[in-house]
């Protein structure tokens, strides 16, 4: 009721703000275009440079792209399965579904998780709904992981950016509907999935639609124990249209919906009743290799997430409560890539977005009035950002890339009740912050096959709504209620990264080492003057800036093809994080190595894969962490494809965790073991 009223009342105001922002953005973009135009001279080269060379650290994107493609070949893989195998990434797990991505142990507000350049904010105060759950691999065209020198190009951040680019309709122009239907079953969770995707193009139009349904029961951990409340059920559906206006210009419209329900979170005291996301975007793309402005994109988007937790299925709940949350985001970005004189490249991005967040909790006690409070008091974050990345070849071997970004962020509480509530513990007048990010990347080719790079960067990130305004948010991991701090300073980081890569034919080896010095690191510290709100909570923690912390580590990936039909892929990562008192930081994954060997023989393929992690004993006891044992897992996968009535069939089967190991990863919450031996079978038909 309340929400409906606010939405209606808010509409004219929103329109007004959108107008204001569009005008502001147009101003920025036209200025940038004009400035860039002043610098352009006739280019003597018509070589098409990969976008990756400008926007993304050159070495990274193709490597991670190849890894994504390799792991995507397993059709039962969820996006989470793929992410967890990328060397830079780990997942914080609270349940079988809805894991939170982490880049080099940075997570939450420290990283950007984007869908096609769009910002989207989860509606769950317990981070049960990271944006990554809304993308099915079937919708995924590619996944970019941007770190240090470019991690902030799409949004101020200290940890980097994961951008999931959605698949586009194909111009097959055969006047036929083509598509893929796939189904799968796996034993550990008695899980079933069904997905379909259709593509149609005619003339200048192309359309694509996809749908996925997943139904997973409680899974069985290694040793055969059933994990209660690990079930989930969801549908995901999308519709995309593309209109090719001329050779260089295309228009896109994308709609995506995701509905999950009955999602269990064994590591949390309650589950998710439903989680619904809707995303819509319209964009215009222009790619003209002949022009100085050789690539240009503008996108307008809006998305919403509604989320509701459910404790009715849990036994012995001390008090029933409803915990709904909602997020509403709209925004726009414009990105242009220019070719300047002397083979220099310039990428410019201007973006604006506005996010509304609200979450509440209502507890019920018979004979009493309901107890209602806001856990995310109604707040709005307006963000105006401008970034530029300038690539300057010094000579044929050495090149320099300078990247900068600034964000103006305006956070404020937007309702009387939110202001009244926050006034109890903090400042309710809102805040404006100017964030600055800067990096220098030096890349040097060493002969034909070697490339090294060094980067230095300074980055800042905004505290999240939860860190600013969160009101007694219970953290099941350490058992404390968390309370926001409205006067937190932005977290800052000084980073250095060294990378080396070797490429020869299909063989590619890459090694990255990084070091981040965090300043004003945001963490929760016990506030003895506050009394707990949650029954059985150990105490209250308030978010504070602590003087500093360091995160350092390395990752490596190897892709080797000793023969045409054999591929070997191995990734390993290690991170070490500690604060200035030499205390380990929480949620630091231990050394981990995943290796796969795939052998293709005509229509068959066979793949063996192992995952190995060392124990993690460097733990932050203050954050409730416990030592995690190491593990070794073995997986086997088989595949066969064939043509039948002109349709391509794919059958895949495999066994994961062959030894039925009972294990958990260090980033998993609640000492809940992961799935045990799992046999899967999938069928895919392409027509």
């Amino acid at each position: 009721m309340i929400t409906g009223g606010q939405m209606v009342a808010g509409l004219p105001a929103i329109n007004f703000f959108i107008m204001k922002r569009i005008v502001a953005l147009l101003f920025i973009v036209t200025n940038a275009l004009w400035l860039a135009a002043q610098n352009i001279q006739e280019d003597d080269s018509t070589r098409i440079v990969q976008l990756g060379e400008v926007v993304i650290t050159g070495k990274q994107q193709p490597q991670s792209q190849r890894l994504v493609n390799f792991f995507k070949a397993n059709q039962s893989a969820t996006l989470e399965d793929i992410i967890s195998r990328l060397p830079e990434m780990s997942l914080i797990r609270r349940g079988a579904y809805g894991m939170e991505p982490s880049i080099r142990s940075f997570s939450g507000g420290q990283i950007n998780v984007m869908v096609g350049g769009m910002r989207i904010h989860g509606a769950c105060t317990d981070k049960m709904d990271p944006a990554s759950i809304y993308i099915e691999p079937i919708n995924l065209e590619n996944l970019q992981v941007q770190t240090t020198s470019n991690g902030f190009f799409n949004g101020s951040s200290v940890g980097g950016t994961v951008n999931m680019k959605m698949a586009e309709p194909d111009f097959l122009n055969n006047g036929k509907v083509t598509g893929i239907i796939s189904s799968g079953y796996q034993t550990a969770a008695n899980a079933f999935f069904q997905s379909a995707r259709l593509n149609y193009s005619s003339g200048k139009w192309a359309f694509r639609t996809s749908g996925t349904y997943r139904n997973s029961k409680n899974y069985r951990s290694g040793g055969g124990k059933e994990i209660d409340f690990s079930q989930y059920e969801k549908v995901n559906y999308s519709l995309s249209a593309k209109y090719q206006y001329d050779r260089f210009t295309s228009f896109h419209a994308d709609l995506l919906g995701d509905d999950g329900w009955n999602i269990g979170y064994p590591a949390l005291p309650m589950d998710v009743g439903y989680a619904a996301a809707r995303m819509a975007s319209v964009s215009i793309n222009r790619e003209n290799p002949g022009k100085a402005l050789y690539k240009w994109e503008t996108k307008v988007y809006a998305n919403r997430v509604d989320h509701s937790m459910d404790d009715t299925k849990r036994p012995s709940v001390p008090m029933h409560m409803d915990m709904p949350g909602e997020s509403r985001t709209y925004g726009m970005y414009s990105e242009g890539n220019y070719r300047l004189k002397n083979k220099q490249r310039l990428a410019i991005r201007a973006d604006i977005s506005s996010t509304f967040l609200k979450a509440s909790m209502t507890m019920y006690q018979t004979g009493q009035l309901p107890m209602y409070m806001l856990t995310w008091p109604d707040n709005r974050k307006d963000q105006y950002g401008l970034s530029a990345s300038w690539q300057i070849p010094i000579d044929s071997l050495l090149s320099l890339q300078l990247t900068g970004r600034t964000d103006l962020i305006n956070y404020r509480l937007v309702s009387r009740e939110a202001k009244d509530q926050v006034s109890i513990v903090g400042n309710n007048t809102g805040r404006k912050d100017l964030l600055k990010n800067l990096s220098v990347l030096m890349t040097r080719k060493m002969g034909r096959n070697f490339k090294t790079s060094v980067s230095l960067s300074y980055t800042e990130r905004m505290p999240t709504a939860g860190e600013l305004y969160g009101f007694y948010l219970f953290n099941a991991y350490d058992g404390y209620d968390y309370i926001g701090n409205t006067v937190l300073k932005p977290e800052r980081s000084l980073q250095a990264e060294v990378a080396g890569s070797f490429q020869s034919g299909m063989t590619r080896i890459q090694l990255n080492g990084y070091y981040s010095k965090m300043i004003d690191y945001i963490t929760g510290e016990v506030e003895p003057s506050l009394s707990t709100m949650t029954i059985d909570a150990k105490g209250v923690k308030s978010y504070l800036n602590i003087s500093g912390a360091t995160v350092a580590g390395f990752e490596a990936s190897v892709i080797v093809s000793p023969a045409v039909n054999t591929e070997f892929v191995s990734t390993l990562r290690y991170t070490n994080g500690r604060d200035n008192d030499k205390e380990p930081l929480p949620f630091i994954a231990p050394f981990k190595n995943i290796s796969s060997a795939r052998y293709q023989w005509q229509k068959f393929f066979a793949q063996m894969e192992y995952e190995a992690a060392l124990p993690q004993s460097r733990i932050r006891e203050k954050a409730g962490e416990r030592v995690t044992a190491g593990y070794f897992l073995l997986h086997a996968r088989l595949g066969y494809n064939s043509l039948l009535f002109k349709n391509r069939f794919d059958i895949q089967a495999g066994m994961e965790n062959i030894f039925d190991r009972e294990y958990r990863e260090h980033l998993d919450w609640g000492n809940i073991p992961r799935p045990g031996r799992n046999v899967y079978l999938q069928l895919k038909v392409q027509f």
Partner: protein
Amino acid sequence: MKKILLPLLFIVSAFLILFTSCKKDDLQEPDPAQGLTKLTEGYATGAAAKVEVYVKGNTINTGYTKFYIALYDSVSGQRMDESHIHLTPMMDMGMMQHSAPYENPSSGNAVNHLFPCSVVFIMPSTGGTWTLKIQVHNHLNGKEGSLTIPVTVTDPVKATIKSFTSLHDGGKYFISMIEPSSPKVGINDMEMAIYKKKTMMEFPADSSLSVTLTPEMPTMAHGSPNNVNPVHTGNGHYKGKVNFTMTGLWRLHLDFMSGTAVADSTLYFDTEF
């Protein structure tokens, strides 16, 4: 052109007249008793004054009750904005009588034509009969007279008046919670008044105690942060801040100290919203 101009002029002037007349209406003084309920009216015999008694709401509850008295010259009907009013609340229980704490209007001049005053009813009418004697000293004619009205007092759902026998001097103290009267999630003004029973007829305001406020949600066993203990501001009134972090049933625990001696640590008020 002229044909249009004339009716236009007419319309404009008509609007102007309507508009200005509306303005005149707006300027008329609003009824000072707006939003209040007239409890009763009568004549203060001897003072040549008509007395109208107003209260907030429709019922009178035990606890701190505000009265608003309007006086009129009984002959001319004109408002009397200058008079002294003295209250005497009385509870007749048959076998015995007792009074209650009260606050006379703080000055002889009416505030917006009304004389605000209050009575702290320390029990409901179920045990006897409450009357309120209103003595008026008419400053226009120098005469004095009084009106006695019956008052029906009921207990509210959640008590706003409680008493304790002090541990340090054995005295009986009456504590009345005045604010928050309409609690909300957030920072609320907290106001209470303390009276010490001297005799059955005398309940003077007390400023000798210091108060510690501890709000609690009894069902959740948690409190709220950053409350401000009520401190004495005058006439037995203590003001502070109470913070409610959510809706529901809240218990306001009050500890009373006289210097370093504990006067009482058992008293509390409940409020639910």
